[in-house]
């Protein structure tokens, strides 16, 4: 079975979907001749031709609109944002146009918006953002954030085959840092289903994306505390049942994400557990998140901004002892 990086798994999913479905096309800046800023689509232009691998103008509204129109006309476009931060430039067309389309007039928009997300790469405020909650709070679009190569492969395939717009967030810190066996032609993984990444009984840690790996490392370091780690995999629709079920078992929970705190997913999960599992809680619901600042550039600043393994361990010990 071939071992693949997170980036290779994404590339493989795109290739397999394009081979099996001629209506899948790609649009984005520099994705053709250059193969994409991170080389996800390297070789695609030669293989699939300029009709299906479209180098666009530098215009997020332009090519996002074009992708929506192409979807109306029967295609399944996949749009690459060079960095997910630039999705803000196309915000109107995604949240006002695409996300409301089915609701307004019954016309689905099978477009996948994908791009590199997240901090940790010393890339500064405009190449590091977490944008998931902008979209989770805009009904009509699904938001997916895989943490492993096989999830990236299977969830991207699910997004492309989905008849609704999907935002596929790929963490660029993981592109070449995690590796896993991903079989050729592996099937899609259902959107909206969380995964128990590590079984435990004393407390639950809920996370996604790059932070999932830090949570797993932290859980391994907690000698006397048996931590269960839930990988959400999808931000919207959230697998509420998986979170509630785990908390019913462990009775304590912390949520860890690199997104900033106010209005972040941790607050939403805390509110959910307050309503659904209040009587099962033996301690406060703890949020481990980035502070409410832009993502800073200099290494000491960015390291301070991002929750680290040590922080997660400390928070977990404190909660376990509550």
């Amino acid at each position, binding site marked *: 079975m071939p071992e693949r990086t997170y980036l290779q798994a994404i590339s493989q999913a795109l290739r397999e979907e394009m081979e099996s479905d001629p209506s899948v096309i790609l649009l984005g800046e520099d994705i053709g001749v250059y193969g994409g800023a991170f080389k996800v689509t390297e070789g695609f232009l030669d293989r699939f031709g300029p009709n299906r691998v*479209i180098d666009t103008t530098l215009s997020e509204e332009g090519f996002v609109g074009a992708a929506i*129109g192409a979807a*109306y006309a029967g295609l399944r476009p996949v749009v690459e944002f060079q960095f997910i931060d630039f999705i803000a430039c196309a915000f109107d067309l995604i949240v006002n*146009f695409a996300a409301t389309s*089915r*609701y307004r007039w019954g*016309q*689905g928009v099978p477009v996948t918006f994908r791009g590199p997300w997240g901090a940790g790469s010393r890339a500064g405020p405009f190449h590091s953002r977490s944008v998931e909650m902008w979209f989770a709070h805009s009904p009509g679009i699904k938001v997916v954030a895989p943490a492993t190569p096989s999830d990236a492969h299977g969830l991207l395939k699910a997004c492309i085959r*989905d008849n609704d717009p999907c935002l596929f967030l790929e963490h660029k810190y993981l592109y070449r840092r995690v590796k896993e066996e991903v079989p050729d032609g592996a099937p899609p993984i259902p959107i909206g289903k969380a995964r128990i990444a590590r079984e435990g009984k004393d407390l639950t840690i809920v996370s996604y994306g790059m932070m999932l790996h830090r949570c797993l490392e932290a859980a391994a370091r907690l000698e006397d505390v048996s931590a269960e780690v839930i990988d959400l995999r999808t931000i919207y629709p959230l697998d509420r049942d998986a979170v509630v079920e785990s908390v019913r078992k462990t009775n304590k929970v912390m949520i860890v994400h690199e997104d900033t705190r106010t209005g972040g997913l941790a607050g939403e999960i805390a509110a959910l557990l307050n*309503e659904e599992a209040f009587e099962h809680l033996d301690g406060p619901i703890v949020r481990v998140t980035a502070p409410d600042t832009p993502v800073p550039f200099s290494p000491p600043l960015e390291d301070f901004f991002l929750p680290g393994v040590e922080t997660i361990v400390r928070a977990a010990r404190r909660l376990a002892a509550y």
Partner: protein
Amino acid sequence: MSPKASKAPPAPADPPRAVQLEMYYFMRLTRTLDERAHALHRQGKIVGGLFSSLGQEAISVGSAFALDRGDYLGPLIRNLGAVLVRGHTPREVMTQYFARATSPTRGKDNSQHFGDVRRTGVVAYISMLGTMVPVMAGMALAARIRGERRVALTYVGDGATSTGDFYEGLNFAAVQRLPLVVIIENNGYAYSTPVSRQTLLKDLAEKARAFGIPGYVGDGNDVLEVYRMTRRCVEDARAGGGAQLLELKTFRMRGHAPHDAAEYVPRELFEEWARKDPIERFERALGLSPEERRAVEERVQKEVDDAVEFAENSPWPEGPEALRGVFEDDSLVRFTPWWER
């Protein structure tokens, strides 16, 4: 192909008189629906926004007649006529205005925000102006990729030519040489802002130079000129000539919406443009007999009466319908409050 704005491209032939009579019918239908909707709005029977195309019927009807079956059309708030020509019915329009369960959007959206890609090729627009340009470019792109000879046509107002979407969408279409026709419906005002506060250009079609595509200027109150000019652009686009920009000059004879008395518009302008009314001009050009005129009048009245009656007697949508249709799978929208469990 000249990149600079020019007065008039060589004209295709006028349609036969029978077709011209249909064009006249659609202009009258558009105006009658519009007038009836305004009366119903004053009576408080219809809710929400209502946007009039009074005095602008020639652009919608003339341009929609220039398309072939299978072409795509992206309307705007003042293109009721185009939507009717493409096959949407007065009942669909009225049930939308009445926000009833029988409306094309089942009460989810208002005004003329509806369409049907497969049946009529019409795409439902949204309130953000200029957004239809890149979307319709995408439909033209899909047609090209699939080897279909479809053309996509959309409209922007004078105000929307200031938006980024207009530039980004049209430039994308130009570079990709897509069969997209964009009509600038220059009606003098974007809400209260006159064209002179929107651009320093004399003709908005001059913006075609920025994209390296043809740009034309025409009389938007002459339905046959609208038809001929649009038809030429559509034919050129279909033949591989790429994106086309056509500015049609007209005037908005009401305020932005019923609440707006348009006091910022000099009265003389209304008087001047009233003399250029597109329906009266077309009646004269057609040399309509009193019988022909009456026949159209009766047909239109009957259809509009039926639409109003149907809409008024249609049920309201039920509240929980609000939870349906966000995604293909309705079970994804869960909304059970804590106190009801």
